[in-house]
């Protein structure tokens, strides 16, 4: 869960964002508190607070005084857009690099991806 080599507060923020994107944390739903996050991951509460603060600054969460942190409306859409943009760098780039190592042409790669994606969607709807 917690990875080496990356700032903890970023990972905390990401894990909250993950649950928003996945749909397990709904808009206007209450996000886990700083202390809950810290206790769950067994990390320093200040680090958890930093992650939450980052999400507030980003507009993903907002604070209801006296109650806690809540998911901002439209957060999910914005996160999806952000992740799609990053998708190219994070996943597609390495995919292409690995494919070229193996000698696959762009067309071969495209066919491979399309077929796999189609099969996986069929699998899901069955």
């Amino acid at each position: 869960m917690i990875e080496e080599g990356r700032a903890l507060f970023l990972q905390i923020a990401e894990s909250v964002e993950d649950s928003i994107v996945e749909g397990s944390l709904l808009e206007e739903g209450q996000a886990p508190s700083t202390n809950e996050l810290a206790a769950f991951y067994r990390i320093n509460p200040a680090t958890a607070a930093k992650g939450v603060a980052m999400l507030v600054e980003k507009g993903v969460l907002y604070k209801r005084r006296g109650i806690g942190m809540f998911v901002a409306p439209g957060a999910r859409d914005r996160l999806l857009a952000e992740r799609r943009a990053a998708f190219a760098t994070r996943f597609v780039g390495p995919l292409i690099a690995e494919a070229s190592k193996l000698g696959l042409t762009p067309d071969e790669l495209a066919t491979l991806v399309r077929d796999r994606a189609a099969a996986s969607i069929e699998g899901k709807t069955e």
Partner: protein
Amino acid sequence: MTTSDTVIEVAGLTKRYRETLAVDDVSFAIEKDKIYGLLGRNGAGKTTVMSILTAQNFETSGELRVFGEHPYENARVLRRMCFVRESQKYPDDALPKHAFATARLFFPRWDQEFAERLIDDFQLPSNKRIKKLSRGQLSAVGVIIGLAARAEITFFDEPYLGLDAVARQIFYDRLLEDYTAHPRTVILSSHLIDEVSNLIEHVIVLDRGRVIMDDETDAVRDRAANIVGDTAAVEAFAVGREVIHRESLGRVSAVTVLGTLTDADHRELALAGLDVGPVSLQQLIVRTTQHAAADAATDEGALR
């Protein structure tokens, strides 16, 4: 950087024993209510620094302020601190409960209920004399005092040596829980870096009496990367970067490179067919320390 939140300020602190400099021109500032890790090898000077901060030892030169004052013979300041050292001595024939009863007398914020829960957690025998306790049980006494005293500045000098992994985890858990409920400044020295890395907000690394790192833990966490792959490609990438560790096996090399990798770097690495791996805090500190030692050795060699 000194702010109004600074509780400890150290400038140019030096401790000399005859020929050796146990603490060599050390400067740092501790801010309140944060958990600090004071890391480094055995003999790096961590205990000496903590002893000097609590007036149990004395500086040879340098400035030191705790809550704005010098701690030596300063009851006002000392009563707000607690230092549990690694091999603490206790009065002869004392039972653990005597030690806790005494702590209750001197630490204004002592929480007896908390102490009792901890005694349970660590399974400390109540009728065995301290001098007859096992190493782990002895450490537990120190840990319980450090935790239940709730001192505004609490130092833990590797007090959990002798505790097995389960007991250590109990200590970390209780520390985090209590710190969350009752924030205070905690300075934890350890050479078990990976175990404590998620607890500490700020890292100060000592090596041979000097500060070689003083930073937020999160800032340091992604400061290095392991690059693995074909030796020629690896070396090509490493040009112009600071390499703190190098290993080779045949045509494959692994280097640890300092400096956060940019997106451009990642593209370059992907194109070169090199693998990038994370560097744990422990690896980073160990390799930085070894690198500093190697540098010092070459300097000494050059001077000859």
